[in-house]
Structure formats: C-alpha cells, structure tokens
C-alpha cells in the first residue's frame, strides 16, 4: 500500500513559497494497492495533480469524500479521470436526512459555481452514501462512520493485506469532553481508528489556539496524539494544516511530537508512506 499526500492543507488553499515544503493544496490523499487499485480520499485542490499522475490506463477509481465542505470537494471538476470516457468512478460520501448525495454535490457542480454539471462528466459516475456498513473495494475492506464535525462528516477505515489506514481529516473528538480522552466506546471515531498502522488525523491547532475555536470541528496536535494513543495507532500523521501556518511553524510544532510508542509526523504534500502491516486487524478481509 502506498499513501501519497496530494493535499494536506485545511480550510483554504495556501500556496506560496512559505508553504512549499508541507504544501498549499487542500485535502486529498491517494491510496494505491500493489494491484494498482486506486482510492482517493477527499477531493480538495490536491486532487488535480493526483488525477494527472494516475495512469491513463486506469479504468476504475473510488473517491471517498469525508464531507462536502469546499476544501474537500473543490477539485472534483479538475480530476482528469472524471473527464475521461470509459472510466468507472465511484464517489462515496456522507448521507443526509434531507437531500441525496447527488443533489448536494450538484449544488457545487453546476452553474453558477462551476460550468460543468455532474451529469455531464464523461466518466461513468456512481454515487454511494455512507455509512453503509463495510464494502470491499479491490483489496481494501472499507468502512465509514459518522464523526464529530459540523454538517455531518464521516471518517474512513481501510484495511488490506498490506496494512491499515484510518482517515479522519476533520475531527473534533474532544468537543464537550471534560477530561479528554475518555473511554474509547464514548469517543467519536475510536472504532474507525482502532489499532491502525497509519492514522491521518486533523491537527489544525496548537493547544493555545484550540480554546478560541471550540466547536469549529478540528483538533489540536496534542488532542490528535491523545486520540492516537487511545486507539493504539502506530503512526499519527497530522493533517489539515491551518492555512495561516507556514513551513517553519510546522517544523516547530512537530519537533518533539513523537513518543517512543507513537511516531508523529506532519503530512507533507508529495510525500509517500508505505506502511508495514503491524496490526492484527483483518476486518473480515477476503
């Protein structure tokens, strides 16, 4: 399994020389299996380069959207496979009580916000609403659950024979918890992240910033680390970097973040992780 970071920034794209090392594109992570199956986690502005890097021979791609805030969908219309005839594209996204996923995505993929409608994409697009139990996508056993973030968001858990990954890019599990972290069964997202090799988790804030942004749906790095330790993850990758934070800020923020039991790194645009499968998680793999 290769995990390739195509966009690591949260809220708003922040390109520029001061963010060149960690990247300025918004949320997008490409996951490739040894058999060349491709999953794309979120469709922020980083998805454009992801699409350009995928082989032209690709015939199926699965895009897993955590939620429909703009920093997670803005790149959809610029993802080359969606504009390629003969490609089968599966878009997974959170269910709503009132509108279908198609109707909600169409609010963006239609004039005046975007000139091309969802129905006009050349790929054969199929939409799936989650949570829907677990699903097999190529070698990956995928499951999704609602997690704590405004406007209904999900996190994803992917388990394959090559390793396991949890992706919770926008997540505030500490919201309203007096002594975070509490027990895992009362913690948002804990089941998704339990025992994974790699946990990609929201770490937008510092501890000094968080009290001024309670309820905004994001975590501090120390909260992300506490969550990772609670669920027994092996490697925490801090994600959804604040658009106002430059590369030097992130260097300082992560300088002493790792512990002997937990590797902690900042997601870096363009970087690739190939996790060693170290957990016993099988999640019903076939």
């Amino acid at each position, binding site marked *: 399994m290769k995990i390739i970071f195509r966009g690591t920034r949260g809220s708003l794209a922040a390109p520029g020389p001061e963010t060149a090392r960690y990247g300025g594109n918004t949320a997008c992570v490409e996951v490739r299996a040894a058999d060349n199956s491709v999953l794309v986690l979120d469709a922020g502005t980083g998805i454009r380069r992801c699409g350009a890097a995928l082989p032209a021979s690709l015939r199926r791609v699965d895009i897993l959207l955590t939620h429909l805030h703009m920093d997670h969908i803005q790149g959809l219309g610029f993802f080359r496979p969606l504009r390629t005839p003969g490609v089968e594209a599966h878009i997974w996204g959170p*269910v*709503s009580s009132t509108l279908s996923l198609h109707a909600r995505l169409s609010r963006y993929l239609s004039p005046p916000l975007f000139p091309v409608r969802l129905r006009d994409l050349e790929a054969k697009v199929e939409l799936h609403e989650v949570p829907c139990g677990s699903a097999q996508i190529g070698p990956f056993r995928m499951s999704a659950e*609602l997690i*704590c973030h405004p406007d209904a968001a999900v996190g994803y858990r992917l388990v394959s024979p090559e390793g396991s990954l949890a992706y919770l890019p926008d997540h505030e599990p500490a919201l309203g918890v007096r002594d975070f972290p509490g027990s895992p*069964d009362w*913690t948002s997202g804990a089941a998704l992240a339990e025992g994974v090799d790699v946990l990609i988790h929201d770490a937008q804030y510092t501890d000094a910033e968080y009290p001024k942004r309670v309820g905004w749906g994001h975590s501090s790095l120390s909260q992300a680390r506490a969550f990772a330790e609670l669920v027994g993850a092996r490697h925490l990758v801090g994600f959804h970097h604040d658009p106002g934070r430059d590369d030097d800020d992130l260097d300082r923020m992560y300088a002493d973040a790792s512990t002997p039991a937990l590797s902690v790194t900042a997601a870096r645009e363009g970087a690739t992780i190939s996790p060693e499968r170290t957990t016993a998680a099988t999640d019903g793999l076939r």
Partner: protein
Amino acid sequence: MAQKELEVILARQLTSYLSIPAFIVDPDGTLLFYNEAAEAVLGRRFGETGELALAEWANGFEQTDESGARLDPADQPLVVAVTQRRPAHRQFWLRGFDGMRRHVEVTGLPLIGTGGRYVGAIAYFWTLPNA
C-alpha cells in the same frame, strides 16, 4: 470495539453541560447515561448505577400517578419513546434510589440520527413542587 453512535456521544456531551435532568438509553432501552442533574432526581450517582437494562430501570423506580396508583412501565414517557419511537410526556411521582418521592414531569424523545437511523432515546425531567 462497541463504540456508541455519534449522536448518542454528542447527546451525552450536551446533557453533561445542562442543568436539566436527562437520561439517555440505547435502541434497546438500556440506560447509557444520566447527567448530574438527574442524579439529584434519581437519588444516586451515575457512576454507582452504570448501564442498566430497560426492565431493570423501568421497574426499578416506584412510579405512581396523581392518585397514587402505580404506573404501568409501558406508559412511562421514555419507554414509549423506545418501544413506539414517538415522543411522550406526562407528570408522575417517582421514588428514587434514595427512597425519596419526587413529583416530576418527563418528556421522552426518540433519537433519530442522520439518514433516519434510530439510535436510542432521551428523557428530560422537570421537577415539580411536591405539594
């Protein structure tokens, strides 16, 4: 890991901050949590009670109507919310774990989550003058 549904986790977090007594159950009616304000009505700290099956808590408290007749557990607002998945409301007298009788008004509401999922129920209590 048997993690609670997100809506139930958020309900617990909300009620932890409320001064209105609140009582949360899962889809089977198993008591999951009651807040500090409810501890004063029920006469026992939640930490001492823990999770209880519906039959245990529904029959565990003596509940009587205005005339002193014992209430059928099936008519309790929270039991109605669980079994019939609709809101219910009534006044009654409740004897807590501490043996005290209290006059209460209770509203039971089913918790219907995202996508129409039934994830449990919640009861809010209002204490009334005992006279």
